């Protein structure tokens, strides 16, 4: 099929798409997507991701899969859902952070969250440490896949599928 489309036509089709991606500030769309739309889309994506993980978790538990691999995968789902929640809150906390709340006078690595630290500031600070959740989540994903792989190698397919 591809070979049937001339090279010129392909350039014509791809050019607007590339233009939209590369120069999104001045997107030549009929509807404008400026302002906080990016954050909203991102936050909605977090919710969708969280929902998808919840669905997967529910399905794994519903299916009654047994084995260590499926247990690890459930843990991945839990942690990833928590991370999504943290990230969701973290983005709001970052947006709510007033200008000048962080001082980088002594350099970026010596940046300080200036006192007094309000609840919003603490939320920001804690959610900035979100890797403490997402990294273990991905570690459990790795463990789950390794467990499945090893089980398959020894012809002991976990979950009995």
């Amino acid at each position: 099929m591809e070979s049937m489309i001339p090279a010129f036509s392909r350039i014509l089709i791809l050019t607007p798409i590339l233009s939209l991606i590369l120069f999104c500030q001045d997107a030549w769309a009929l509807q404008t997507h400026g302002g906080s739309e990016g954050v909203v889309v991102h936050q909605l994506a977090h919710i969708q991701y969280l929902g998808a993980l919840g669905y997967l978790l529910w399905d794994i538990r519903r299916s009654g899969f047994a084995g260590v691999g499926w247990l690890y995968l459930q843990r991945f789902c839990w942690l990833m859902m928590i991370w999504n929640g943290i990230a969701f809150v973290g983005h709001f906390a970052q947006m709510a952070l007033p200008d000048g709340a962080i001082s980088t006078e002594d350099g970026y690595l010596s940046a300080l969250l200036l006192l007094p630290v309000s609840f919003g500031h603490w939320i920001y600070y804690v959610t900035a440490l979100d890797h403490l959740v997402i990294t273990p989540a991905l570690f459990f994903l790795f463990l789950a896949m390794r467990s499945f792989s090893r089980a398959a190698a020894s012809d002991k397919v976990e979950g009995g599928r």
Partner: protein
Amino acid sequence: MIAGIPLFPAILVDIIGSAANIAFAFLAWRHARSLSRRQPGNFVWGYLFYVTFAIAAFTISRAVGHLVKQFLLIAGHAEVWYVISPYSGGFNTLFMISVAAVMIFYHKGVQAYEALENEAGKLKNANRELEAAATQLQNLNQTLEQKVEERTEELSQSEKKFRHLFSASKDMVFFCDSANRVVDMNDSGFEMLGYRREEGTGLALMDFFTDPAGIDEFCRRLSDDGYIKDLDLGFLRSDGTAISVLLSATAIFGEDGGMIGAEVIAKDLTKLKIMMEQLAASEKMASIGQMAAGVAHEINTPLGIILGYSQLLMDDFAEGSEAYQSLQVIERQTKASRKIVADLLKFSRQSGSSREDVNINDILGDVMAVTEHTLGLSHIQVRRDLAAEKPIVVGDAEKLRQVFVNLITNAHHAMLEQGGGEILIRTANGENGTVMVEVRDSGHGIAEKNLAKIFDPFFTTKPVGQGTGLGLSVSYGIIHAHGGTIEVESPVHDPQRGTVAGTLFRIRLPQSGYEGQQADSPAMSV
């Protein structure tokens, strides 16, 4: 005094965490890929592969964005990051949506696959059950076939066994139908009756039962009892000779209970009967011989005295006187009596005899020289078939001569009524060191009822005064004394002409010089 909370831990965690995330996401994807390659048909592994791929893409896009951000900010190029940031965030959002999409929508595919697999499983189960049923049926079929084969083999073996029993039996075995027709008969049966198999087709009981009353008896007993045990019957051979059989039979009943035939076994007892008769005759002859010897001894003495005194008295009377003539009659009759006594002694083998090598051909030549003229007058021809090799026996020539004279005389008498005939004299060196002599005439033969009596002393069918009935008895005694046998056949079974009228006497004597010769082996055939 602390002016604020340092953000360095958060920066550090961000950098290290991002790097670790890239590593874990990549490793998870690699395992998922190897899993799906190892079992490409497994839809779940395929699902996990796409999910981990999307997560890896998302994680790498995010982690790389974070690392770039941290390093740009550390390097003091915040303005560069501000340019890149929307693209990084955009890709990050895009991949996050992709992960969620793959997770949800692709999972729906998994469910569809599961449903299909479930149905396939059901089909598989149904197939398995069908296969099991088919295998079971096949096994059953095979077992059935095997059983049929085994039963057929057993039946075949059984049929072979009974067929062999039927065909190899030396006794007559046959099946007959309700109309007394022979349905099947073994070879021994045909041989016993003198038929070839093709000749025996359509043979009925009435064709070979000598007595029709025997058939009635056969049918009656089968009908009444359902079986027959040891029925003594006579069968008629194809050549007209009769044989004695002992018959056993079992009736065959049809489904309606009616008799549809019978299976019959008949044993030929002819030879046994002959042997029994021979044994009885032999015993009888032995006892008669003993009695004759006793009587002869007892009579011989008074006869000698009577003869002596009559001869003494003859000296006292003038020749031609009445008393002298009477004494001559006494002397003549006494001598006749003494001859009879002498014959009796010969029969009982009490008389003395010499032993020397004798050529039977010469003996017969002597006998024929004396008798041939008389035979010629009665229109009796004599044919000779003498052995080229001298048939020599050890014996008393005079006594043997007497035997053959007796036989020729009997043959002569047998052919007188019919006004002529033929006498065939045959000698041969027989088997087992015997010399065989046959004297055969074409006379009227001997009645079957008399066959067993012809060697009895004083038995004669001749009119009174023409024979003493001692000729064959004496011959029997002489042959027996020579260790030989004498047997009679009447009518004669000629190999060429079949059964012909006449009588055949067959004498077997031990050949001289034969190692297996037995000096005295009494045997007699009638």
